[in-house]
């Protein structure tokens, strides 16, 4: 565990905590982007260069933007009654999450695991080769899934026939 790891973990955890706790949704989405950049830094720190850059490209460049667009498209109407969130719901949620966290951390600490020391790198060429040989079938399926998701999203979000644009 090094100083850089601690700093990166702080960025990730603070970003994530901010992403679920701000009241302004735009701030939440931006904090999500910060957490994602932190995760990319963690991947780079661990030597997975390709995954780190893909993380930035997909999450910061695409997912955050889509979330922001969705937030701006779903503004509540002015003077709509505010959503009253019962306090016990919140407390229960946080309590359950805290319990799960305690359980997971206890389980991790209780498991004897040895860490492999020394560098481990994977080149883009290796990844490409693996994707085209061992993981060819999953790659095709993911391609299909993405296409289906794209078409599904367009059909879902497109205005229906005859419906006037909001």
């Amino acid at each position: 565990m090094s100083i850089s790891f601690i700093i990166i973990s702080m960025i990730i955890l603070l970003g994530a905590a901010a992403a679920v706790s701000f009241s302004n949704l735009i701030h939440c989405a931006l904090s999500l982007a910060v957490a994602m950049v932190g995760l990319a830094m963690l991947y780079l720190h661990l030597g997975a260069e390709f995954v780190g850059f893909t993380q930035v490209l997909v999450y910061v460049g695409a997912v955050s933007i889509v979330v922001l667009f969705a937030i701006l498209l779903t503004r509540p109407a002015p003077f709509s009654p505010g959503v009253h969130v019962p306090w016990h719901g919140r407390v229960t949620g946080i309590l359950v999450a805290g319990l799960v966290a305690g359980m997971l951390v206890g389980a991790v600490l209780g498991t004897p695991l040895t860490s492999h020391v020394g560098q481990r790198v994977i080149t883009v060429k290796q990844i490409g080769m693996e994707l085209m040989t061992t993981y060819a079938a999953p790659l095709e399926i993911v391609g299909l899934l993405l296409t289906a998701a794209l078409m599904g999203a367009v059909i879902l979000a497109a205005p229906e026939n005859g419906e006037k644009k909001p």
Partner: protein
Amino acid sequence: MIQPLHACLILSSLLFCIGLAGVLARHNTILMLIGVELMLNAANVNFIAFWRYGAWAGQSAGVMFAIFSIAVAAAEIAVGLALVILIFRHVRTTSIDRVDGMKG
């Protein structure tokens, strides 16, 4: 001194629980999707950590899994947000408590 693999796993479990807390405690559908994203990414951290610190050298399964997971998460958020926008069009709100028209 805590081992690097343990540190990564603790980080990922904390991240998972932040996501879980977001899903359970917030009532906005978009925020719940954000929480789900965080949980998915916690899983990714585990994959990369085991790839990096695991004892089985020479295998790329962890990285591959992370890449596929990112691709699937992108698809998930696209469909999820499309659903949110669709629901918003019908009930003019993104609060999960108001979307209770389907009582079984």
